[in-house]
Structures are given as C-alpha cells and as structure tokens.
C-alpha cells in the first residue's frame, strides 16, 4: 500500500525507452566499399508515466519517433534499452512468458490509416470477432454475433453493419470499426497512432468525441499520438513533445499550452495557423528537421534554436524535473529563457 501523500500510481510507465534500427548497407558493400555501419536512433531515452483513465499525447514532426514509441508499447518492437511497465509488470519480459497473452489482451492499438488496417476480404463481423476468438473470450457463434453487435453500437454504428465489408464504409466509419475491434478484448490501455489524421474535420470530430465518451464510460487510458496540436489540446491530459527521438518537454496540457518552456515547443505552437487571428502574420521558423541518421551534436534542436549557444552545440541536455514540467534544455536550466 502506498502512502496517501504519494502521487497516484502510474498505470503505464516507460523508463529510458530506446530503439535503435540497424540501417547499415549489406555486409558485402561494407567490406568492398568500406561503408560504415549505420545506426538510426529512432527513440532515444524516453521516460513517462500515464495515470489510469488519463491521456498522454505525444506530438512531433515526421521522423521524431512517436510512432516507434507506440509500436514499442504494444510489443511490436523490442526495445534496445529501457523498460516499459504496465501496472508494475515489465511488459516485454512478460510477453515472453505464458502470461503474455493476457497482457496483450489488456493493451490494444488503433492505427492511423483505416483503409490499410482492415482486411478488405473479411466482413466486419470477422474483423471485430477475430481478437475475441484469438483470446478465447467467446466460443459459440451466437454469443460472438451478439458481442460484435454490441461493440458496433458502442461506436455509433448499427449491428446490421456486421455483414458488410470495409469498402462499404466511409473513412470515419472504418475508423470506428477499428476502435470497436480494439475495444473487443476490453483493454485498459489503448495506443492510438494518429487515429484521425486520415479523416476530414467533421468526421474527426465524431471520432474524437466517441473516443472521449468511451474513455469516460470505460475508464480507458490512452497514449495518443498526433502531429496536430489542436487535436492534442482537445484530447490530452498531459502532452509530451518529441524531437529526433527524444522527449524534449513533458507537461500538463494547461501548463504546456499556457507557458511552453522548450524553444521547440514554442516554435511548434507558433507555427500553427490560428483560425481566429485572421491576417496576422507569424514569424515562420527557419530550418528543417535534420536527418535522424546524422543528428546534430549536443542538443539536436540547436541549429534551429534562437537561444542556442556553444554549450547547446556540444553538450546534450539532461531532462530536468521541475514541479509542473520536465524539460531538456540548457537555456531553461540556466534561466536564459
């Protein structure tokens, strides 16, 4: 039993998670052409906690490693370093054991593209029913039928839709089918990788509302990955900002949007076109995301950072834990910004 004064225990907690991909040329080329080994540090030392029933959103530009984090959490990738624990259990160690299957049941994922993540040759009943059968939750077909019907209704579709095929649905409806499939095993933790990026805004609103309703009614915990900060502001409790494989800032949503600390977070917030600031010109940020194969020395953001100095170029900042925020930046540490 933990003391009441302690912070509520995290349901999901990642410690120093890292994933390195070997993208070296083939052995023969390395020998004959003298090409070096190449390692891509997709995720490099990411730590966070998510409390039960809360949503952590990870934001960042393409190539920053957010989808790799998602895949690490559901066990699609083995971490190169670090651990990820779910209710105190080390997930990757448990997945190797016979208990792994029940753990998989409790962690599910929703993918970005509802056109690619549903088998076009299966009916909706087959698609939603598969995880139920796979985990041995339901054996006879009448019960399965009823359960799939319930799941479809819980995401705002009709039970009659289960005889149809994915191509008979629109993008938003397909994404609801993906959500129904993920909910089938009654998971406690859902990893959502850009679940609305492929959808139109009015449909995006429908899907986000359903996800919020389900979170409230079932007490779900979400890891929500997105590049859209406005969507993140709407769904998240906590927001983590990633840049080139590292978590540069992690804060409560209100703190992050009101007082962003890291220069990259400030830049991202500034770069977003605002609907209600018509005609107002912003100062666009200079530079582009560097190649993750050869990240800049020191702080990876220093070539684009307006506050960078010699230390930023040489020494990699360590994550500082401040009361409301954790941030990895020399300028913040030194009180320069």
């Amino acid at each position, binding site marked *: 039993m933990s003391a009441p004064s302690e912070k509520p225990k995290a349901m999901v907690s990642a410690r120093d998670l890292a994933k390195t991909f070997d993208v070296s040329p083939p052995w023969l080329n390395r020998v004959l052409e003298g090409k070096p080994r190449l390692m891509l540090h997709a995720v490099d030392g990411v730590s966070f906690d998510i409390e039960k029933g809360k949503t952590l959103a990870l934001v960042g*530009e*393409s190539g920053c490693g957010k989808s790799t984090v998602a895949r690490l959490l559901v066990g699609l990738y083995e971490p190169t370093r670090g651990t990820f624990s779910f209710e105190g259990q080390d997930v990757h160690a448990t997945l190797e054991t016979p208990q792994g299957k029940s753990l998989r049941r409790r962690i599910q994922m929703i993918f970005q593209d509802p056109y690619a993540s549903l088998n076009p040759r299966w009916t909706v009943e087959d698609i939603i029913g598969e995880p139920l059968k796979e985990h041995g939750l339901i054996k006879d077909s009448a019960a399965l039928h009823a359960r799939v019907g319930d799941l479809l209704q819980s995401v705002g579709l009709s039970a009659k839709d289960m005889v149809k095929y994915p191509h008979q649905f*629109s*993008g*938003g*409806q397909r994404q609801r089918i993906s959500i129904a499939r993920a909910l089938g095993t009654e998971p406690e933790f859902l990893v959502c990788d850009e679940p609305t990026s492929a959808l*139109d*805004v*009015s*449909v*995006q*609103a*429908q899907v*986000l*509302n359903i996800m*919020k309703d389900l979170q409230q009614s079932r007490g779900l915990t979400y890891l929500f990955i997105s*590049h*859209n*900060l*406005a*969507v993140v*502001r*709407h769904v998240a409790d906590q927001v983590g900002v990633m840049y080139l494989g590292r978590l540069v800032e992690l804060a409560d949503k*209100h703190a992050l*949007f009101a007082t962003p600390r890291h220069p990259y977070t400030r*830049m*991202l*917030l*500034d*770069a*977003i*076109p*605002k*609907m*209600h*600031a*018509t*005609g*107002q*010109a*912003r100062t*666009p*940020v*200079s530079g*582009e*995301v560097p190649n993750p194969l050869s990240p800049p020395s020191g702080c990876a953001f220093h070539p684009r950072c307006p506050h960078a100095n010699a230390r930023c170029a040489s020494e990699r900042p360590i994550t500082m834990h401040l009361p409301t925020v954790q941030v990895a930046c020399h300028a913040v540490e030194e009180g320069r910004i």
Partner: protein
Amino acid sequence: MNLLQVKNLVVEFPGRRGTLRALDDISFAIAPGEILGIVGESGAGKSLTSAAIIGLLESPGRISGGQILLEGERIDNLDDAQMRRIRGRRIGAIFQDPLTSLNPLYTVGRQLVETIQTHLPVNAQEARQRAIALLQETGIAAAEQRMEHYPHQFSGGMRQRVVIALALAGEPKLIVADEPTTALDVSIQAQIITLLKSVCKKHGAAVMLITHDMGVIAETCDRVAVMYAGRIAEIGPVHEVINRPSHPYSEGLMAAIPDITVDRERLNQIDGAMPRLDAIPKGCAFNPRCPKVFDRCRQERPDLMPAQASQAACWLHAPQVGGAA
C-alpha cells in the same frame, strides 16, 4: 475586371450507370492579386474545380456546362495545344506532393530554365539568370549550386519552394495551389505559406488556394468559398465566414475544428457524412444533416443569395421572411 471568372460551371463524369454530376453550377470570381481560399471535405469538389480551371480534368470527366473566363476570354473550350500555352504562362499550378510535380531525372535548374524559355522570349543565359533569381526569391540558399541538383537532393520543404519557383517562372497572373502544404510538417507549412503569400504579392499574382486547413485559410486568404457536395455553400470575406458563418454547414464545420487557443470539452459534430455523388438528396444537399432544416430545403435547391456580408446557398437567407410559410 475580374482576373478569373467561373460561371455556372458543371463537371460531369459519364459512367455505365448514368452520369455523375461532380460539380454543379459553380460560380465565383477572383480579382487581380486576390487570394481566394477553397475549403471543403474530401469529395466536395475542391480539386475538380482547380483541375477544370487549369484544363487538367481527367477523362471521362468533362465540362458539360458553364464558362471559365480568364481576363474576359473563354478558356474552357480551348484545345490541348492552346491550353498548354496558357498553363504555366498565364496560370501557374502548385500541387500537393512536390516530389511528383518535379521530374526526378532532370536537375532543378534544367526544369526551371526549360519552363522559362517555353513561356518567355529570353535566351538561355537570361533564362538561367532568371532561374537563379527565382530560387533565391523562394528562399533557397546557394541558389547557383542548387541549380545543378536533382529533386531527390532537396528536402520536402525545399522541393515545395522549387515548385513555387516553377509556378512563378512564366510570370502568371493566377496561381492555382492545390493543398500546397498538406504533405509538409507543421513547422515547414508556416514557412511555405508565408513564402507563397509574399512572392505572389510581389509578382502581383492572384492565388486560388485549396486546402482543408481552416487555419491556413484564416491567415492567408482575402475571401473563402466553402464547398459541399459539388456546390458552393458559402462564399465571402474570410473573417466573416470563419467568425460569423451564414450557412449551417460552414457553421458546423467551423465548430468541428479543434482550436488550439480554446479549451472545449466536446467538439461540435455534424452527424452523418457527405452524400455520395449518386445519392445527392433533393433540395439542398445538406438538408438531411442540417440542424435548421425546414420544408423548403427538402423541395427546392437554394442558389447563392446575400447573407450578412457573404453569400450563402441557404433558404434561411431567402429575401422573403419565412420561406416555409
């Protein structure tokens, strides 16, 4: 005089099971130097409108009614050869994916010089100078060396800058930009939009900007047209349409967009989905999803009519009060 005038444009796709009407009676105009935004959800007809204007409608799609006038002269009935002389010279185009709009086998310099020489009476030396100037203007560092590089040697944002330089090469009066920033990261999007706005202003080119990002529209455009199911639902000054939308669809759309500056517990949602082209409802196409629907909406199709400072195709704004009565 209007630079571009689209009058009652109809685009149809003949098919085995009948003809689909993808654009139905679209009318709008763009003044010289103006930036007109076009928004709408996928399938609303945004890209078809731009394809019809630049003469790149894909078969079997065809313009089956209405007119497109560029500087008072009809361009919708020109043949391919005539249209090729207009495209690039008088109307420039920027597409969504910069990698597919550049030829991967030619250097960026060669593509620019070729475009300039096709459209302008200059010799090779002058064309090269112009190409370098254009690259510099679009913010490409070391433009002279970059001329010799191939598209794959540029990053996404840089490529889109090259595409903007290409679109400007023939000194067109109108640039049609179809989702120019959708494929780019947010920090790059802002750079490209700012660039597009400033170079077009400098060259006096008007822009027709197609996007589904209302934030981009709000910051860039003078006027905006909201499309729904192949028709214009509302058109008007950008801050009017965003802050005081007149059409229930634009109203729903604006409220559905999560706003980075505001905390909201729930997003407004428009229930249902846009109808398919073969099942467009009678009357107003939006009537089955409209919260303010009344009898007339189910019977008669509304055309654009004055509504506040904009124009909206909605019977709520019919001059006779209580059209349903």
